[in-house]
């Protein structure tokens, strides 16, 4: 263990702007990419990190004080600030736990395919960052590097299983019409509950009958989907509530608009640098599993443009803010991820094949859990952010992301372990156990639900 601790310590002190390029070079060459290409992409990853540091510092430096002033002034306890999933993805790649996760996840996937335990081949290497985040959080809670990597492997296994399960929904022409594809994300783990919620909603008379047109919702609320405008509006609201003067409000609004656009762009640069490895992995895997009856694991981003998903996501923006204020015990202020609620709307609308009213009710229930848990996870996410080198002032707020609440596997594993390491109260453990029992119960009782829903055509029924 002594040597491992030493290596981890060295990587941590070097920081991701230096370590990531080195690791990318090694991995890129290992997957048979050309040296010139590998070096260029390795440097690009470092550049991406530097860009992310700059923009996040700007964001926290300007918008953070407004959030803090709002907390003081209103006496609301929203002390955890949502910095958005792009920042958290960068934190995950930057933690020393990230490096073994790519090969370990690949090995897990190959083993499961060979043993017939999954049909999903996850070629979406970019989103391995979620596995990396589980590893990072578990490492921080337990102080045990190996346990972190094991947790990432568990995340990978569960993500593949849920991908198999929801695949019929993804393939259904009345839903997303993408046969042969699915989404091996931890965020999909809310699916058993989502199907249960929708099943209950169908039992309530009248609810399924209400029709809402996704297109007119988009036309009215579409502004909330544009990062610059959303950032600007949120900045004004925050600045005004914080009691800033006109110029102060204007400054917060502009920085908020800027960072809402710029931070994801910087993460795009990071992603660009990771592409050759992602390509290498895809080619490596496709060659080994050609012509098999497999489901290709993809980024759920490819279904975020469906009209019902967009409509529900837009309506969830104001609902999420209201939920955050009125939910007792919640400490998270949803902010940056409000521009990305389409991801959380997928599971809300899929069981009903795009019924807006049922989707909105289901989405609201899911958002309540997501927001609450994202707040609970914020101290640990903040610790990771500091380790990776984000300048979060000691007296400032915690940082978190809605993704930390939406990705069930992160928090289920973290909250299960935390009480045993003095990092959380025993109540986490009880909550977690109830959630897990409910989860597997739903999954078991509804095990045929995605298949059944996809086989039942809405049009043929009438």
């Amino acid at each position, binding site marked *: 263990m002594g040597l491992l601790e030493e290596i981890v310590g060295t990587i941590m002190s070097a920081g991701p702007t230096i370590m990531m390029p080195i690791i990318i070079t090694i991995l890129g060459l290992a997957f048979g990419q050309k040296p010139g290409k590998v070096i260029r992409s390795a440097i690009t990853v470092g550049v991406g990190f530097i860009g992310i540091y700059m923009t996040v510092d700007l964001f926290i430096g300007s918008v953070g004080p407004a959030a803090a002033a709002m907390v003081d002034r209103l006496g609301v306890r929203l002390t955890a600030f949502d910095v958005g999933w*792009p920042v958290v993805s960068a934190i995950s790649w930057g933690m020393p736990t990230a490096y073994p996760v790519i090969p370990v996840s690949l090995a897990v996937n190959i083993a499961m395919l060979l043993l017939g335990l999954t049909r999903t081949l996850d070629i979406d290497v970019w989103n391995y960052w979620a596995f990396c985040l589980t590893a990072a959080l578990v490492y921080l809670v337990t102080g045990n590097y190996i346990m972190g990597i094991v947790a990432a492997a568990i995340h990978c296994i569960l993500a593949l299983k849920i991908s198999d399960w929801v695949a019929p929904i993804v393939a259904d022409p009345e839903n997303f019409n993408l046969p042969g594809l699915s989404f091996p994300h931890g965020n999909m783990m809310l699916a058993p509950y989502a199907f249960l919620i929708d099943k209950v909603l169908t039992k309530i008379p009248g609810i399924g009958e209400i029709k809402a047109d996704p*297109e007119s919702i988009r036309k009215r609320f579409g502004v909330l989907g544009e990062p610059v405008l959303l950032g600007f509006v949120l900045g004004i609201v925050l600045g005004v509530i914080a009691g800033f003067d006109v110029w102060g409000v204007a400054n917060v609004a502009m920085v908020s608009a800027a960072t809402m656009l710029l931070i994801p762009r910087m993460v795009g640069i990071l*992603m660009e640098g990771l592409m050759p490895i992602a390509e290498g992995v895809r080619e490596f895997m496709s060659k080994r599993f050609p012509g098999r009856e497999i489901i290709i694991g993809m980024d759920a981003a*490819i*279904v975020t*443009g469906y009209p019902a998903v*967009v409509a529900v996501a837009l309506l969830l923006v104001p609902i999420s803010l209201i939920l955050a204020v009125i939910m007792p015990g919640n400490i998270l202020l949803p902010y940056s991820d409000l521009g990305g609620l389409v991801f959380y709307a997928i599971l809300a609308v899929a069981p009903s094949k795009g019924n807006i009213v049922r989707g909105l009710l289901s989405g609201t229930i899911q958002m309540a859990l997501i927001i609450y848990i994202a707040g609970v996870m914020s101290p640990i996410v903040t610790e990771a952010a500091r380790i990776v080198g984000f300048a979060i002032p000691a007296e400032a707020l915690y940082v978190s992301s809605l993704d930390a609440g939406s990705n069930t596997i992160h928090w289920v594993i973290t909250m299960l372990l935390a009480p045993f390491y003095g990092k959380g109260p025993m109540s986490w453990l009880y909550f977690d156990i109830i959630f897990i029992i409910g989860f597997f119960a739903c999954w078991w009782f509804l095990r045929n639900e995605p298949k059944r829903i996809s086989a039942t055509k809405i049009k043929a029924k009438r």
Partner: protein
Amino acid sequence: MNKKHILIACGTAVATATAVAMKMRELFEKEGINADTTQCKAIEVNYYLSQRTPDLIVSTTPIPGEKINGPNHRTINGVTILNGIPYLTGIGKEKLDQEILNILSGKH
């Protein structure tokens, strides 16, 4: 040939759009095509079109407000939308390459 402009849309403008953009840049380099790409969220496309008209849109997800004129033929404001998913899976990549080249050279 004038410089061509391609808009690439996905759910986040970050992940899948970047993957598609890199594939397209490789194609343009190989074929000697003078073109640039911009990435945005699918939901921003309408706003983008009010500012600038691209020669082609490649998207990995449906675009709100798009018109479906037939199988595999989608447009918005008269701009053709191609499905970028083949660049993510690798399946049907050559066909998509060819479709892009056809549209940019005006053979469509």
